């Protein structure tokens, strides 16, 4: 002790880069794990209708979906027209109001995207719209694909 060697002369000036891939992979894995892909298993059949003058919904987190279509039964059979919200089939239309009201409280700028099978009769959509009006979630979007 007492006198120090001049270290700078001997050690290399480079920052060690061997750990870089580990950092990058860690980032990659972190984002892969934290990204939640919200997928719902459709319990109703939906063929999207096509339209020309459509708009894109850019803010996906504002969107909540209501699926309407014939229920998928075992053996590729289709049942009656049902409403599905999130992962469950709603038997009673009047339940839509409470569900949507709760969602609206969480997200005041809620957009309700109606994904309706193209051969559905419009009556059930009218019922849903009435419920949505009661719930106060007035922004809706009829989900359609671009016409080709």
């Amino acid at each position, binding site marked *: 002790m007492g006198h120090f060697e001049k270290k700078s002369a001997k050690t290399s000036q480079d920052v060690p*880069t061997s750990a870089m*891939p580990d950092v990058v992979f860690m980032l990659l894995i972190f984002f892969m794990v934290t990204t939640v892909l919200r997928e719902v298993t459709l319990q109703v059949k939906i063929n999207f*209708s096509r339209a*020309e003058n459509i*708009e894109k*919904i850019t803010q996906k987190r504002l969107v909540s979906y209501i699926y309407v279509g014939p229920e998928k039964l075992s053996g590729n059979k289709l049942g009656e027209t049902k409403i599905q919200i999130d992962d469950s089939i709603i038997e009673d239309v009047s339940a839509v109001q409470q569900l949507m009201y709760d969602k609206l409280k969480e997200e005041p700028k809620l957009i309700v995207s109606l994904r309706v099978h193209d051969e559905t009769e419009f009556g059930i959509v*009218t019922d849903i719209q009435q419920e949505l*009006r009661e719930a106060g979630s*007035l922004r809706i979007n009829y*989900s359609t694909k671009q016409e080709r």
Partner: protein
Amino acid sequence: MFNDKKEREDPEVGGAGMADIAFLLLIFFLLVTTIDVDTGIGLQLPPAPQEDQKPPPIKTRNMMKILVNAQGMVLMGTGEPEPTPVPQVKQKIKEFVTNRGQNPNLSDSPDKAIVSIKTQRATPYNVYIDMLDEVMGAYRDLRNQAAQAQFGKTYDQLKDGSPEKGKVKDTYPKKISIAEPDQ
């Protein structure tokens, strides 16, 4: 220092390139992943009707009534609704909105023009969407025309929230109302 290196070689595999590989993979997947964009026809529902509230009086000429009936026929008109093929809906809406008081049976001004849509319980959904598509198309064309005439750009090219876009929007406000369903 230099003598050292010549005597024994570094046994490690060069790890610096690994970062590049990882980045390349990351960028490749970022580009390849297509997040499917939601598309659809947006609409604003009217608020729930109050108990003792009467609808405001609207002159019949300012209200284009469209009825899509159970047979999938589109009936439209300000007075007596007449059957209209779906591809003609767009033209009719345009005439109705841009009338500006000329034809006594059509709207006073684009500002007052209201499109009222009525359906029946057994109305097929795809006909309804086709009809709505036509109505949206009419407004889109009109707004594009106005934007092109005033600013030399299409409506979509104008920036969101810019005064220009607001002005075009106010010229042709999209007043689409969903009629109360019959009880």
